[in-house]
């Protein structure tokens, strides 16, 4: 285990890359699922699936990093409940960046639409075609997404509170350009 005062560059890059891709995949998912069937819808669903699989791969890398590193400690001033909440949110987010793409992948298999990564690499269907199961998995995918939306709002809100109200330098650990004193 490695501990440091700031997140490593690997962790920082993975964090922002995943965040950025989720900010694309989420609204794309919402938009495309309300479209009438059209060539555009089929294209967007494919793009969404490719984005989602990319997030999944990055999430696996992120968890592999996390297994070998302990994040920098939280500020002394934080209360016990705040520490508990912080850990809970972080762990749930780790869980969701795996579970959401997985539910999407399984949903696609159950609905009988295989995932072909970037239109070239067919991913195995982990489950067989089963329409009823596909409908359930769609609900699961949707619910997990709304769960993540709530957590992301809390996560971003907390980060901004730390930055602008507590001014404890927490955000700079993940966003080094904010760290004026300790520029790497």
């Amino acid at each position, binding site marked *: 285990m490695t501990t440091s005062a700031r997140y490593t560059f690997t962790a920082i890059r993975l964090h922002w890359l995943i965040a950025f891709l989720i900010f694309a995949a989420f609204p794309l998912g919402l938009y495309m699922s309300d479209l009438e*069937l*059209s*060539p555009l819808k*089929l*294209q967007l*669903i*494919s793009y969404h699936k490719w984005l989602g699989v990319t997030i999944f791969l990055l999430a696996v890398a992120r968890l592999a990093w996390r297994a070998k590193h302990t994040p920098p400690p939280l500020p002394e001033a934080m209360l016990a409940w705040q520490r508990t909440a912080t850990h809970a949110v972080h762990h749930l987010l780790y869980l969701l960046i795996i579970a959401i793409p997985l539910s999407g992948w399984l949903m696609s298999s159950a*609905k*009988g*639409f*295989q*995932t*072909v990564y970037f*239109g*070239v690499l067919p991913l195995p269907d982990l489950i067989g*075609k089963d329409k009823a199961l596909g409908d359930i998995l769609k609900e699961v995918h949707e619910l997990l997404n709304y769960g993540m939306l709530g957590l992301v709002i809390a996560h971003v809100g907390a980060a901004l509170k730390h930055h602008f109200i507590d001014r404890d330098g927490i955000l700079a650990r993940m966003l080094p350009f904010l760290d004026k004193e300790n520029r790497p």
Partner: protein
Amino acid sequence: MIRLLAILSLLSSSFAYGAELSAVQLDKSTIAFVSRQMNVPVEGIFQQFSAQISIDPARPEAGRARIEIDLASIDAGSTDANDEVKGKSWFNTREFPKAVFVSSTVKSLGSGRFEALGKMTIKGKTQEARAPFTLKQEKGVLILDGTFPLKRLAYDIGSGVWSDTSVVADEVLIKFHFVLK
């Protein structure tokens, strides 16, 4: 008079071929297809069709077939797709409820493989079609299995915005499995 002619011509054609059309066991037979959407193979089936096939493994050249597919019985993989493909730009099943294949000749390709040549009519358009197949005799039934590519745009299937073949490929694989008694 017309009816008499029709009966005569029916009789003469069955005499000419010298074989009765075999009974196709519809509940054991299938007509399926695989389309490619964004390079993803998507399976579908036609749930209703009629098939008259006569083939004598000893004399396949005398074989003939007439297949009629009830296009509205399509299951294209999802409810959305099923509604869409019955519509005007796809099959337009209201005006063109059936796809019909009528064989003209059957060729032997050797080692249990054959090829039926014939005419396929879909959406008012008729094209030459060739369907290679295998024949297997099994416990008193004859099993006929084949696969052939069909170019959907030649029949105007999926016109307008759907004619973009980078989304839905032109080529659709048709897979048939007939059990004859």
